[in-house]
Every structure is written in structure tokens, then in C-alpha cells.
């Protein structure tokens, strides 16, 4: 009887030790949850093969590599990302967030990584310009919780111009409604608007720009409990120093870039990230996205 008890204790201790050994490497590389509304090319979208791709996500992946932590990317509705970060369900919000005073009250932002203005999208056949797009009676579309929606609210509706603001779950849905000519204009950030014009095959055009001069940042929980912001800021600087940053910009925003290529390019090249070679990844991604020859890992 006694020996049996001892046997149990021994097995129990062994399990504990094995568990601890198994547990140690995991404790070394922390995993953080990155939340993004993955429906907004070229910053983040789901490609033809179902992969999560885009500028924001690559920055997150590469910063994690450089700073030695793991990330787990989650697809969330845009307006629920900040509440999720506040509630601690997400560690980082990476979804082309403009740094605003209102948001800064509830979350903390990284250094700005992108400057953007709002574009006014209209149907190419509508003949609307940036003034007539906002005349009384028009229906304007935007995504819920965005600075585009806020701009219409503040600068059109609050100025007493009687337009209807329709708020969609995602920008692609708003663009679809614009293509269907159910609404008159969509207000959204310039890079995404340009992609929308391209993918609409001539149905949409940019009527004009609104110089909002917004700065994008990655966001974390107030007070940055995981000390992520120094790592993100540092990582971004390192990316710039090593030329990774410019290659990513080339890959996603370059003039010859065809975003449809991303499915093939990302599938072929993500191995560079697995091998911890972000420079090679970014360089070859830029080449691949603009249709040049590239090197697989």
C-alpha cells in the first residue's frame, strides 16, 4: 500500500517536472493577440487563398520576429477592436487606426506609421464632384467607427447639411452599395479608396480628397501593461533601418503592384518569415507584387 502511494507521488512529480520543462520555452516567447478588421486592402485583407495579408499585418509579423514574441492574428469587426483591446481580449489593435484624441482617452497608441487623407468615392457615371457629393438629400456611406464616418458627422451633418449617413459593417459593403448606386458617395482613407477604384473596374472614381492629415498608429490597452509599445516603436525603427519598411511600402502601395498577386506571393514567400529573415521576405515580396522575378526560400 505504502509503496503504491510512493509510486503515485513519483509519477506525479515526474509529470510536474516534464510539464515545467515543456512549459519553459513557451514562457520565453510570449504570444500576443493582434486584432484587425481584415477587409481593407491594402492594409489588411483576406486573399484568394484565405490568407491574412496586408501592410499592417506584415508590420506586426516582422516586429514580432525582430522583438522575439509570437502573434496570433484575429479578424474582428472594426468598431469592436477598441472595446476588445480595452477589455483585454486583444493585445494589439492593428487596423489602420487613426490616432485621435477620443481614442487616446481609452487606449494608447504607438508612434505614427502612416499618414493618410480621406478620399471621396463616387460612382464614375454619377457626375458628382467633391462639392455636389455632399449636397442636401444625398446619402453618404462609411464604415462604422471610422474617422471617415466621424468626418461626415462633424463636417457635414453638424454643419446643418441634411445628408443621410449610412454606416456599414465594412468598407467593401459600402463600396458595393455605391457600385449599386444606392448611395451617392463613400468617405474613406485614400489608399483603400484607390484600391476600391481599381477593383471596381471603372465603376468608381475618386471625386476629390479631404486633407485630414490623419496619422495611423497601432494601439494597445491603456497604460500598456505588456510593455508592447516600446517594442513596436523600436521594431518599426529597426524595419526602417534595415530597408524592410520601404520594401513593404513598395509591395503594397507601389505603382506597378497588382494586389491580386498577393495570394501567390505570400504563399511562396512566407517561408522567409518562418526562417527569421524578414529582409529577404520584404525584398522578394516587393518584387513579386510588381511582377518581377523573386526568390523563394
Amino acid at each position, binding site marked *: 500500500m505504502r509503496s503504491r502511494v510512493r509510486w503515485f507521488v513519483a509519477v506525479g512529480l515526474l509529470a510536474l517536472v516534464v510539464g515545467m520543462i515543456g512549459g519553459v520555452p513557451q514562457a520565453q516567447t510570449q504570444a500576443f493577440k493582434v486584432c484587425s478588421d481584415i477587409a481593407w486592402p491594402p492594409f489588411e485583407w483576406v486573399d484568394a487563398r484565405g490568407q491574412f495579408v496586408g501592410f499592417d499585418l506584415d508590420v506586426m509579423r516582422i516586429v514580432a520576429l525582430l522583438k522575439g514574441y509570437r502573434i496570433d492574428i484575429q479578424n474582428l469587426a472594426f468598431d469592436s477592436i477598441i472595446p476588445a483591446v480595452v477589455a483585454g481580449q486583444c493585445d494589439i489593435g492593428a487596423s489602420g487606426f487613426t490616432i485621435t484624441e477620443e481614442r487616446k482617452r481609452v487606449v494608447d497608441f504607438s508612434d505614427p506609421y502612416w499618414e493618410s487623407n480621406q478620399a471621396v468615392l463616387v460612382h464614375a457615371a454619377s457626375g458628382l464632384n467633391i462639392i455636389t457629393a455632399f449636397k442636401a438629400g444625398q446619402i453618404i456611406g462609411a464604415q462604422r467607427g471610422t474617422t471617415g464616418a466621424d468626418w461626415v458627422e462633424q463636417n457635414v451633418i453638424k454643419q446643418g447639411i441634411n445628408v443621410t449617413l449610412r454606416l456599414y459593417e465594412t468598407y467593401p459593403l459600402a463600396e458595393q452599395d455605391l457600385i449599386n*448606386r444606392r448611395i451617392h458617395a463613400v468617405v474613406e482613407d485614400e489608399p483603400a479608396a484607390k484600391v476600391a477604384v481599381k477593383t471596381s473596374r471603372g465603376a468608381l472614381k475618386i471625386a476629390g480628397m479631404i486633407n485630414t492629415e490623419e496619422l495611423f498608429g497601432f494601439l494597445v490597452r491603456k497604460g500598456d501593461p505588456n510593455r508592447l509599445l516600446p517594442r513596436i516603436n523600436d521594431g518599426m525603427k529597426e524595419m526602417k533601418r534595415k530597408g524592410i519598411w520601404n520594401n513593404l511600402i513598395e509591395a503594397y502601395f507601389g505603382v506597378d503592384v497588382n494586389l491580386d498577386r498577393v495570394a501567390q506571393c505570400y504563399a511562396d514567400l512566407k517561408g522567409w518569415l518562418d526562417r527569421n529573415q524578414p529582409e529577404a521576405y520584404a525584398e522578394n515580396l516587393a518584387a513579386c507584387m510588381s511582377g518581377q522575378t523573386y526568390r523563394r526560400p
Partner: protein
Amino acid sequence: MNLLGPFCQTLQDGSFVRLACEIAPRLLQGTATTFQLTVFAMVLGLGVGLLLALGRIYGNKPIYGLSTAYVQFVRGTPVLVQLFLIYYGLPAFEIRLDPFLAAIIGLGLNSAAYQAEYFRGAIQAIGRGQMLAARAVGMTNLQAIGYVILPQALRIVIPPWSNELIYTLKYSSVAYIITTPELMYTGQIIASSPRGPGAFRYFEVFLIVAVIYLVCVLVISKLLDLVEQRVKIPGLEMR
């Protein structure tokens, strides 16, 4: 706009009651839209559903086949997919419904399939002999249905129909995705407007939204209970 405004100001800043007070008018506006949506959808569903039920019971082969196919298709696909088909799909055929109308048609045609099944069950619960008896005293098929079968079946159908009404009221919340300004849509806008009182306060805003839905459902259940009592014929209750 908000008549409660001055009163809300007296409540403690940032508190739950202050938030509830400040967003109540907009939420109630959304609730009114939810109600209209539900009522119109149920009426549409009642009409179409009754026709489908009659088609499945008394219809000839093609009518039976069509109504059965309709019921199977609608019950076999999610209401969200149906709304997308109607709202984002129909413009391909130059049909552009506004969000409110698209939601009524989507929810109504969806509810029709379920209502059809409830009606069918209720009609078939009336003994076959009654139909034969009605025909025997010289009624036409339609007269027998209208004067003998339906008056009984419609009473039997009240409890399951109340359920359907409650489901439709709650499912109407999916109409937010096609920008119908109902309760759910209003709640999401309040929680995602960075400058408003509900900014980023998802839990509190949706708690209030949940309570409003709950109150609506309880009131409707009570009302339909009363209707059921009112039209009851002693001896005809479902056992």
C-alpha cells in the same frame, strides 16, 4: 432633440444611468423601427405563409411542389444570407430596395416559410371529416376552408405563431447589416461614435439594448396570451 437632456445633466457624469438617460431617445427611435419592421414582416409572412400552407395541403402537384420548394429553400438557408441576396444581389437585376423595405421583404419572406409550417400543422389538426362534412352540405372547397377549417386552425395556431412573432422581432436585429436603422444598428452606432456618450462602452450600451428587446418580447407574449384567451372557444383547446 432630447427632451430628457436637462434632466440627464443632473445625473452623475459617466454613470450607467446617465448613459441610459442620454441614449434612450435614440434607442427608442430604433425600437420603433424594429417594431415597424416586425409588424410589416409578420403581416407579409402571414399572407404568404397562409397561401403556402394551403398550397401544400390542398394544392395540385405543381402548386404543392412550388410551395414545398419555397419552404425548404427558405428554411434551409440563413436569414442573413437571404438579406444579402435581396439587398446586395437584386441590384444586379436593377432592383434597388432601400434598407427598410429590403429588411421587411427579407424577414417577411423568411417568416412566411415558418408560418406556413405552423399553419399546415394547425390545418391538418382539424379532422378530415369536417372537410368532407362541409362538402357534403354543399360548400365549395374554398368555402369549407374559409368558414370551417380556418376559423378553427387560426385559433390553434396562436401559440406557435406567438413564438414566430418573438423570433421575428429578435431576428430583425440582423437587418443592421444592411443598414436598416433598427435597434441593433442604433446601438452599434452609439457604441462606435467616438464623441457620443456611449463611445466604446459596448457592454453598457448593449445591456440596455438587451433589456429593451426583453421588455418588447415580454409585452408581446402577454398581449398574445390575452388574444388567445379572448378568441378561445371552450372545448376546442389544443390538448
